[in-house]
């Protein structure tokens, strides 16, 4: 047994940490959120140059062939710095889905994602369907005309292409189309944690046969696996947030004096920070288990990812709330980073099924 990261993985973590420290501080992040695109073109280019955009893709597709462990490292570090770039939407949700598919043109698309030249988004969710992603109302009729509306399409406003789940003759399909196709309309907004998100509707959109990425069981498996990997990624992000919440709160309370002493002297606050620390360690443990299962593509991987997601949903939110509370008024100030971890945790819990949902999934 060895539960340590190897040298290459440690170097990757340091590389990402260095980037976050030097290129992506809180003010930079604020700028990115307020910008038109809601991501930073230069930063994205840098991601490409570092090879991060091709990291999880198979070598056959021209990628680095890294897996869930490296992705988890990346997301943990992104979580600490609250990086807002659309890595999840373009690389994880769209790129890895294409990579695992048998879609004929995938190599070209993966190449464009890896070089940072193209954003692709996945439309998997619909209003009123909750966390059930396998019975979309969006449909492709026998003449290949697409109708329906997708919601919560992350980074939809920047996507050149869209991968859309839909039903055709009662069969589940994943299709891909250009976002500027006639009949596609995109309504974009910001999420609570500052990501760009869209609601996209399709009105009599003509789709031709070659646009089908996968059908039937293959499509179902592809989506399930992709969402599972995405859940792992956002959970790793949450683990990063939890570590930062604990660490930043510790630093803050050591520096904040009231009643003639640092407030970290008060034992009640010490215990609460110890709890935050413990929760962050336990979450890390579940992350390690889940990422190893996904790495092995084991039968049990869905269960372990659900265990992780339900755990971080609950304890992550708790840690972030505690962090805010222990910062006093500073905790609710928009100009302090700490409150943004809380927003991130709300967002992560809501994405892809919240704590209750995944607990049930784990138990079933």
């Amino acid at each position, binding site marked *: 047994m060895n539960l340590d990261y190897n040298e290459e993985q440690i170097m990757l973590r340091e590389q990402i940490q260095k980037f976050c420290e030097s290129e992506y501080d809180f003010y930079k992040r604020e700028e990115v959120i307020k910008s038109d695109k809601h991501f930073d073109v230069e930063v994205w280019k840098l991601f490409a140059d570092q090879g991060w955009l091709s990291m999880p893709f198979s070598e056959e597709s021209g990628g680095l062939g890294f897996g869930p462990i490296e992705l988890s490292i990346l997301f943990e570090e992104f979580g600490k710095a609250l990086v807002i770039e659309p890595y999840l939407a373009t690389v994880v949700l769209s790129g890895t889905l294409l990579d695992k598919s048998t879609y004929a043109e995938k190599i070209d698309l993966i190449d464009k994602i890896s070089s940072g030249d193209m954003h692709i988004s996945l439309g998997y969710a619909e*209003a009123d369907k909750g966390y059930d992603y396998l019975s979309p109302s969006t449909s492709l009729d026998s003449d290949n005309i697409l109708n329906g509306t997708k919601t919560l399409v992350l980074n939809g406003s920047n996507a050149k292409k869209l991968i859309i789940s839909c039903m055709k003759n009662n069969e589940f399909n994943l299709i891909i189309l250009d976002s500027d196709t006639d009949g596609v309309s995109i309504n974009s907004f910001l999420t609570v944690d500052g990501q760009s998100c869209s609601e996209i509707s399709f009105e009599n959109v003509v789709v031709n046969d070659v646009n089908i990425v996968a059908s039937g069981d293959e499509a179902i498996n592809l989506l399930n696996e992709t969402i599972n990997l995405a859940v792992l990624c956002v959970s790793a992000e949450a683990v990063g947030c939890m570590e930062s919440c604990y660490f930043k709160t510790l630093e803050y309370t050591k520096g904040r004096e009231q009643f003639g002493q640092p407030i970290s002297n008060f034992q009640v606050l010490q215990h609460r920070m110890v709890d935050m620390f413990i929760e962050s360690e336990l979450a890390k443990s579940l992350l390690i288990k889940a990422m190893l299962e996904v790495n092995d593509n084991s039968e049990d991987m869905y269960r372990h990812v659900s265990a992780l997601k339900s755990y971080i949903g609950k304890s992550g939110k708790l840690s972030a709330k505690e962090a805010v509370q222990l910062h006093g008024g500073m905790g609710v100030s928009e100009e302090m980073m700490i409150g943004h971890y809380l927003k991130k945790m709300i967002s992560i819990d809501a994405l892809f099924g919240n704590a209750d949902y995944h607990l049930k999934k784990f138990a079933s």
Partner: protein
Amino acid sequence: MDINFSKEDIAFRQEVKDWLANDYPKHVKEKTDNGIALTKQDMIDFHKALSKKGWMGYNWPVEYGGTGWSSTQLYIFNKEFGLAGCPPLLAFGVSMVAPVIWTFGNDEQKNRFLPDILEFNTWWCQGYSEPGSGSDLASLKTKAVRDGDNYIVNGSKTWTTLAQNADWIFCLVRTDNSGIKQEGISFLLIDMKTPGIEVKPIITIDGEHEVNSVFFTDVKVPVENLVGEEGKGWTYAKFLLAHERFGIAGLGASLRSLNRLKNIISKLNNPDLERKANELEVSLSAIEITELRLLSALENGGHPGAESSILKIKGTEMQQNLSELFVEAAGEYALMYPGPHGYGSNDKPSGPDYAAEGLSSFLNLRKTSIYGGSNEIQKNILAKFVLGV
């Protein structure tokens, strides 16, 4: 024992309900019912309507133009207003500075300030906290130095709620540095239009502009604006705290929020949410009856003191938990909080209306366990004065 209200109290409750049904300004109700933020003018209209009915001085003695209500009546009034979804009454003038003025102020101050508070002609804000003095308020540093007929005030206050709307601010200032920190604090009333005052917004995590930093640079405050004696400000501040004991649990608003939540959840077929809502209902009932017990003790001549900290702690946790359940009920739609400026030129995305509203309250209500004496400080109070350790 009898847990029921008297006939008189029931009649009073009807009178309150009638006012809310008929005279609660419609344009304000329309907004609060739909979770839309109120403007300054809305708040003024609401308070003026109350004033017209003669209820602005809801916790004032009759001699100063107040209602002279019993604690039970006050409780009923608070609860019904909360249940009706009214915005919380602005406490700064009517229930914070006013009692200090009528108890410790001179006749001139009473005549000058109290009528305007009753008619809501002046908007007050509270200048206590400073960047370096939050929980440890007595360490405050904003300085007032006597110069002839004036004090010259220098320093800064922070987290000042709605200072951007305020005409006046009541401040704790340091007039003496020589003794222990609680001594040497004075209670000053300052006109916000005085030169040298600068108000800067602090935006909170819900995106709202609710609090501010207030900076004082050589601000000239006439000596006649000192309330009571110089150096006695800490005593007055403590007195003031004792005055806002009831209603802090926000019971009515929580009951309203619970009812809405149960209504939403009943349509979701989600046993987890149903269980959580049921648990909150039980806790809320416990809080309500605890408040009634404290009330009963008070009406029967008792002096519940520190116990009321229970209401602050549990009442604020309840508000937070309720808002969190709204967020959970919204599922994935919880992601979509546009901030106070709405969705701009874009269409509102689909999803339930309560999604954005729930999230905005969830973020906003984090403050309730921080301000008004943080919940940790309340527990310190309970430990010291009730448990005696």
